[in-house]
C-alpha cells in the first residue's frame, strides 16, 4: 500500500470512528441499551484514536517532529519551562502551611503543582504552536520544505507531534516532581510523628490521625456516589394529593399562566393548566426533599457500595454542604448525623454537640461496617439547631459518599492524561490559527478563543444559577442585554470545547477519582472531536495557502 493510500485509509477510518460514536450517542436516546451503546462509543473512540495515531506513523511527520523538538530544546524554551516549574513548585512545601494539617498541605501542594504545570504547559504549547510554523515563514525555511517531497499537512502534523512529545516529556517530569513532593511531605510527617514521645499520647494520636486522614482522603482515589433519588411513588403521591388544589389556584384569573391565556377551548386550557401545576409540584417536591425544617429528620439512601470492605477499619467519606435559611447567622448549626441500616448493620451517630458552618464543604469518615450486605448505606440527618432555621441541601450533589477505589499514583497518572489532552487541544488551536494567521495575530486569536471557552461556560453557569443583570427586570436595556448574553453564552457553550467538565487537579488534590470514563470523555471530546476536526480544518486551510505571499 502506498503512503498516500495509507493516509487516506487512516483519515477515512478516523472519520468513520467519529461518525460511529455520534451515531451511537444519537441512537442511545431512542433505544434503551446503555451498555451496548457505551461499548460502541468506546470502540469508536479507540478506532478513531488508532487512525489518528496511524497518521503520525509517517517518516516526514516524524522528521518535522524531531526538528520541532530540536528547536524547542536548542533555543532552551523547554528548559526554561522546567526551571520555572521547579522554582514555582518546589518552594511550595516550604512556604505554604495550608490549614495546618497534612491533609490540607497535600491538597494545596497537589492542586498547585498540577495547576502550575498545566498553566506552564499551556503557555509553552500556545507559544510553540503559534511560533513554530510562523518562524518557518519568517526565516523562509518553508520554501525549502515546500521544495521537498512532502505535503503541507505533514508539516502541520509533524509540528503537532513534536510539541506533543515535548509536552509528554515535561508532563512526566512534572508528575514525578508532584509525586516526589507528596511522598517527601508524607515521609516528613511520619518522621515527625515517630519522634513524638509515647508520653504525649494525645499529640501522638493527633499526628497519627493526620497521617491517616491524609492517606485516606488525599492519597487515594475515591469514587463519588450520589444518593438514590426519592422513589417515584413519593413524587407521584405528592402530586396526586396536591394537583387538584394547585390547578384550581392556577385557574384563578389573576394567577392564570401566560401559556393558558387566550385559549378558547375549555378542555385544552384545563389540560395545559394541569400540566403546569404538575411541573410546579414536581419542582416543589425536589425542594422539599432537600430542605430539613427544625427538628425534622431527612434520610438518604446510598446504594451500590459493594466495592468497600465492610470492616470497622475501612471507612467511606460523607461529604456534604448545606445552606441555612437564617442567612444572617454566622454561627455553626447543630445537627445530628446517623449512619447504618436499622436491624442490619452497626449504627453510628455523631457527637451530640456536633455543629457545622453552613455554605462550606464538610467531610465525615463513616466506618464501612455501617454498609449492609447489599452495599446500601442509610444516612439520617436531623436539624437540631436551637435557632430553628431550615437547613437546605440545595442541589443533588450537595451530599455524597466517597468510596476508595484506587491509589494516588494511578489517580495522578489519569489526571496527567487529562491535562495532556487539554494541552493537546491548546496546541491544535495554536497550530490551526497559525495555519492562516501571522504573528502576533495567531497567538492573540488563539488566546481569545481559549478565554472565551472558559468564560462562556462560567457565565452560562452563573446565569443558570439565577444570576440576573437586573433583579427587578425593570430596565429594558438590562433585559435585552441579559437575553443576548444568554443566547450567546448558550451557543458558545454548545460550540466550544467543554473545558469546565475537566478539573483533574481539583479531583486528584481532594482524593477524588479521576475515572477512566473521564479520560475517555476527554479523549473523545477534546482530542478527537474538537481537536481532530480543528486539525483537519487547519490542514485543509494550510494546504491551500499561498505560502509565497504569506512570507513577510
Amino acid at each position, binding site marked *: 500500500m502506498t503512503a498516500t493510500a495509507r493516509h487516506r485509509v487512516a483519515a477515512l477510518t478516523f472519520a468513520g470512528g467519529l461518525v460511529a460514536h455520534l451515531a451511537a450517542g444519537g441512537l442511545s436516546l431512542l433505544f434503551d441499551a446503555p451498555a451496548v451503546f457505551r461499548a460502541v462509543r468506546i470502540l469508536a473512540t479507540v478506532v478513531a484514536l488508532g487512525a489518528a495515531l496511524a497518521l503520525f506513523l509517517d517518516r*516526514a511527520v516524524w*522528521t518535522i517532529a524531531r526538528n520541532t523538538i530540536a*528547536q524547542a530544546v536548542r533555543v532552551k524554551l523547554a528548559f526554561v519551562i522546567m526551571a520555572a516549574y521547579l522554582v514555582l513548585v518546589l518552594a511550595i512545601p516550604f512556604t505554604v502551611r495550608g490549614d495546618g494539617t497534612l491533609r490540607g498541605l497535600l491538597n494545596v501542594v497537589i492542586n498547585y503543582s498540577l495547576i502550575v504545570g498545566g498553566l506552564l504547559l499551556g503557555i509553552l504549547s500556545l507559544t510553540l504552536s503559534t511560533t513554530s510554523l510562523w518562524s518557518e515563514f519568517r526565516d523562509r*525555511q518553508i520554501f525549502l520544505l515546500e*521544495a*521537498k517531497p*512532502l*505535503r503541507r499537512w505533514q508539516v502541520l502534523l509533524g509540528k503537532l507531534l513534536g510539541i506533543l512529545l515535548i509536552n509528554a516529556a515535561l508532563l512526566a517530569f512534572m508528575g514525578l516532581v508532584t509525586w516526589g513532593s507528596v511522598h517527601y511531605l508524607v515521609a516528613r510527617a511520619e518522621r515527625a510523628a515517630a519522634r513524638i514521645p509515647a508520653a504525649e499520647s494525645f499529640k501522638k494520636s493527633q499526628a497519627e490521625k493526620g497521617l491517616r486522614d491524609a492517606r485516606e482522603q488525599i492519597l487515594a482515589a475515591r469514587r463519588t456516589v450520589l444518593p438514590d433519588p426519592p422513589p417515584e411513588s413519593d413524587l407521584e403521591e405528592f402530586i396526586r394529593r396536591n394537583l387538584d388544589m394547585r390547578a384550581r389556584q392556577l385557574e384563578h384569573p389573576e394567577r392564570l399562566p401566560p401559556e393558558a391565556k387566550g385559549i378558547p377551548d375549555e378542555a385544552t386550557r384545563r389540560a395545559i393548566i394541569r400540566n403546569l401545576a404538575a411541573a410546579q409540584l414536581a419542582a416543589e417536591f425536589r425542594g422539599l426533599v432537600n430542605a430539613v425544617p427544625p427538628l425534622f429528620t431527612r434520610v438518604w439512601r446510598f446504594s451500590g457500595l459493594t466495592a468497600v470492605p465492610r470492616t470497622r477499619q475501612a471507612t467511606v467519606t460523607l461529604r456534604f454542604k448545606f445552606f441555612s435559611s437564617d442567612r444572617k447567622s454566622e454561627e455553626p448549626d447543630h445537627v445530628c448525623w446517623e449512619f447504618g441500616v436499622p436491624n442490619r448493620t452497626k449504627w453510628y451517630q455523631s457527637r451530640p454537640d456536633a455543629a457545622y458552618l453552613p455554605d462550606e464543604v464538610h467531610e465525615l469518615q463513616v466506618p464501612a461496617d455501617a454498609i449492609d450486605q447489599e452495599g446500601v448505606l442509610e444516612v439520617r440527618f436531623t436539624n437540631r439547631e436551637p435557632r430553628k432555621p431550615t437547613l437546605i441541601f440545595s442541589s443533588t450533589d450537595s451530599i455524597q459518599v466517597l468510596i476508595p477505589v484506587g491509589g494516588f499514583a494511578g489517580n495522578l497518572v489519569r489526571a496527567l492524561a487529562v491535562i495532556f489532552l487539554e494541552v493537546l487541544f491548546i496546541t491544535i488551536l495554536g497550530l490551526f490559527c497559525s495555519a492562516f494567521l501571522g504573528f502576533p495575530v495567531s497567538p492573540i486569536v488563539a488566546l481569545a478563543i481559549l478565554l472565551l471557552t472558559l468564560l462562556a461556560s462560567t457565565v452560562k453557569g452563573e446565569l443558570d444559577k439565577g444570576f440576573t443583570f437586573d433583579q427587578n427586570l425593570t430596565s429594558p436595556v438590562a433585559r435585552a442585554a441579559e437575553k443576548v448574553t444568554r443566547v450567546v453564552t448558550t451557543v458558545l457553550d454548545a460550540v466550544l470545547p467543554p473545558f469546565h467538565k475537566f478539573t483533574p487537579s481539583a479531583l486528584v488534590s481532594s482524593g477524588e477519582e479521576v475515572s477512566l470514563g473521564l479520560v475517555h470523555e476527554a479523549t473523545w471530546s477534546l482530542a478527537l472531536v474538537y481537536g481532530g476536526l480543528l486539525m483537519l480544518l487547519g490542514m485543509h486551510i494550510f494546504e491551500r495557502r499561498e505560502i509565497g505571499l504569506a512570507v513577510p
Partner: protein
Amino acid sequence: MAQKSDDYAVQTLQLTKVFRDFWRRPKVRAVDQLTLDVRRGEVFGLLGPNGSGKSTTIKLLLGLLFPTSGGIRVLGRPPRDVSVKARLGFLPEETYLYPYLNAAETLEFFGRLSGLSRHERRRRVGALIEMVGLGHVRNRPLREYSKGMARRIGLAQALVNDPELLLLDEPTTGLDPLGAREVKDLILELKKRGKTVLLCSHLLAHAEDVCDRIGILYGGKLCVSGSVATLLAKSQLTQITLPALPPEETARVRTLLGEFAQPDAIEVGHPVDRLESFFLRAIEEARQARPETGGAAAGRFEPSLFRKLEAPAEVIERLTRPVEPPPVEAPPPSEPVGAEPDVRREILERLTEKPAAVESPAEDTVGQANRATEEPADAEERRSVLDRLVQKPKPDSDATRKPSP
C-alpha cells in the same frame, strides 16, 4: 523538428501572476504572459534586473505561489505534485536553513524529508559536506557560519536527493570569485551528467559562463530567449587573433586588412582579459609563490572536484571567511601544501565508488574552453565523487515514460 513535451523539464504557458492588495485590487503584475520551455539536460539562465519577476517565476514553479492565469508543468507534472518534488532541488536566493542545526544535521534532515534510506543518507551527507568543503565545520551550528559557508550548505541540501532538475536562485550570491567559479564548475558538471538547471541571476557574466540558453525578463515579460552562442555572436564582424606583433608588423597587418574593410572599421590592439580569469590567475600565482598553510584550504569546495581552485589560504580567508575555522580541525602548519589535496583525495577515495563511465553530452562553448585545460587525473576524481552523488537520469524513468498532458 517539434519537441515533445517530455523533452522539457519546465514548461510555462502564458503564465501570469498578479499580486493583489487587501481589497483584492490588482497591485503588481509580477509575471506577465510568460511562455518558457527549459529542455531536459540544459542549463537555462533566467536573467533580468531586480524586480523583473525571476524569483516570482521560481516560486510559481515550486508551488509557493499560485498562478493568476496560465499553466505550469515541471518534469511533466503540476508543480505541487509530490513526485515532482522528489526529483527537484532548490537553492533559494538566500540560504534559509535552521540556525540551530549543524551541517550534518541539516543534510540529514533534508535527506530524511527526501525519503533517502539511512545508508544512503549517511553516504550522501558525508560526501556532500566534503564536496562543499565544510568538513572541518560540520558540527558547528549554522548560525555560526559565514554567508559563503551557509551558501555552500544550501547548495548541498539542494543536491541531497540527487535531483533531475535544479532551480538555483542567484546561486553565486554571497560567494567570492573563487566560490562563484566553483559553483559554476559544479553546474557544468551536473549538466554533463544530464541534469537540468534553471538558473536565476542578475550577474550576467556568471550566466554567460554556464548557460546553454538564456531568457531575459523585464517587467515580468520575457524579452529575449535563445542560445547564448547565438545571441552573443556578432556575425557582422570577424575577429583574427595572432601572437603579439612588433609595431611595424602591426602596421603591415593593418595595411593588409585595409583591402577588406574601411580603415575606421578595423581594430588592431591587445585583447583584454576577463577580470575573473585575471583574478583566478593572480590567486594561482600567489599560491605558487607562498605555499598555503594547514587550514588554508578549509572552507573551499573539494579541489579535486574543481580544478584550478587550490587557492592560497590568506587570500581566501581575507576575501571570504570572516569566521575562522577551529584550529583543532586544521592540519599541522608545517605540512607542505602539496600534501593537502592528497589528504582530501584519501577522503574521497573512502567515500566514492569506482567511477562510472561518463557520456559526453552536448558540448557548450564555455564548457569546452574549461575542459581544454583539465588534467585527466583531476577529471577522474571529480567524476568519481559526482558519480556517487549524482546519477544520470535513467532512460526508462517515470519522467520519460509519462506522456505530458
